[in-house]
């Protein structure tokens, strides 16, 4: 990286305009040439070429609401999965994801009046999955890598990760009858 900066500085200094440039150039030309040569040598030794640095910015899109409808069988898990777009402009395309529910302390909880029902959130860094790593509320799941090449996946892969919401049978069979609602917030951070 130091070599790249030296190279850029040398070029900028060589782009001046005006009559003073010739005299100045004559005085500094040998030094510039040496600097340029040295910079190129270091670049060559490092095997690197000048490139744009990663911005360390991330983005999550393509999220959809989850509607389970009326759950007829309370003795089996109810599962809803969706493929989403996570873009990570980092050196490794790495990111972490944190889930926050609407229950106390960010718990993954739906409510129906005074009644509540817990749910699980699973995450996979591949799209099209029905299972993944279980998220703990407010705790980042680290070490995820995105294959996204565009911040909204409008080109390259259309989706890069899977979000899975699960209502466990033990929660369903313990819940009072009613209509339950809640929210899930997902925070993506760069890695």
């Amino acid at each position, binding site marked *: 990286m130091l070599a790249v900066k030296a190279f850029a500085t040398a070029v900028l200094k060589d782009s001046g305009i005006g009559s003073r440039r010739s005299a100045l150039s004559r005085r500094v030309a040998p030094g510039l040439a040496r600097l340029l040569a040295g910079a190129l040598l270091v670049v060559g030794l490092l095997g690197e070429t000048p490139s744009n640095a990663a911005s360390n910015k*991330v*983005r999550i899109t393509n999220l959809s609401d989850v509607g389970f409808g009326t759950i007829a069988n309370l003795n089996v898990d109810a599962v809803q999965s969706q493929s989403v777009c996570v873009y990570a402009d980092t050196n490794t395309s790495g990111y972490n994801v944190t889930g926050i529910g609407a229950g106390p302390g960010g718990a993954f909880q739906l409510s129906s009046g005074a009644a509540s029902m817990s749910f699980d959130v699973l995450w996979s860094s591949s799209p099209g999955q029905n299972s993944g790593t279980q998220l703990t509320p407010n705790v980042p799941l680290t070490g995820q890598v995105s294959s996204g090449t565009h911040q909204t996946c409008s080109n390259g892969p259309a989706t890069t990760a899977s979000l899975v919401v699960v209502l466990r049978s033990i929660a369903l069979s313990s819940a009072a*009858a009613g209509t339950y609602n809640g929210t899930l917030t997902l*925070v993506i951070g760069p890695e």
Partner: protein
Amino acid sequence: MDIARYLRLSALCVAGLLASSAAEAATQGSLGATSTGSISIGASVPNRVQISGLSDVSFANQDPATAALSAQNICVWSNTSTKGYNVTASGSGTANAFTLANGALTTPYTVEWAQTSGQSSGTALATGTALTGQKSTATNALCASGPSSTASLIVKMSTASLQTMQAATTYTGTLTLVVAPE
């Protein structure tokens, strides 16, 4: 534009906006040092009940001079807001009568129900008629956690019934219980 047409168009526009807002509740993240998105989650749990923990009843070598009684603790779970339910019993005799039979030989029995466990008497059931207003204390559909049983099923044979039975003869029958949410 006449007033009726204007009102129709306005109603359609409002309906369209409402439908759009409901479908677009999820929020997408923006590009930044962190990115936050959110979704809403909805589910509806219908009224459900479950009866479990039932055991067969057997009266073996019953003395006709002594009334027979079998009481068992069972689990009834209801997920309604009141945990309420009703129970309907039916036998395998003629017109679903509570009778035991061996060929043409029959003898009656009675069925009682209590909404608490550990009881040896309760409310008499009539075949095909729901006993309403029952409440469960179950917190798990199979009573695997919380109370292990919530109700009592009592089957009785009177001495009069026993004395009509033929000795050394096995009488059998089936009792069906249907539980419904309230």
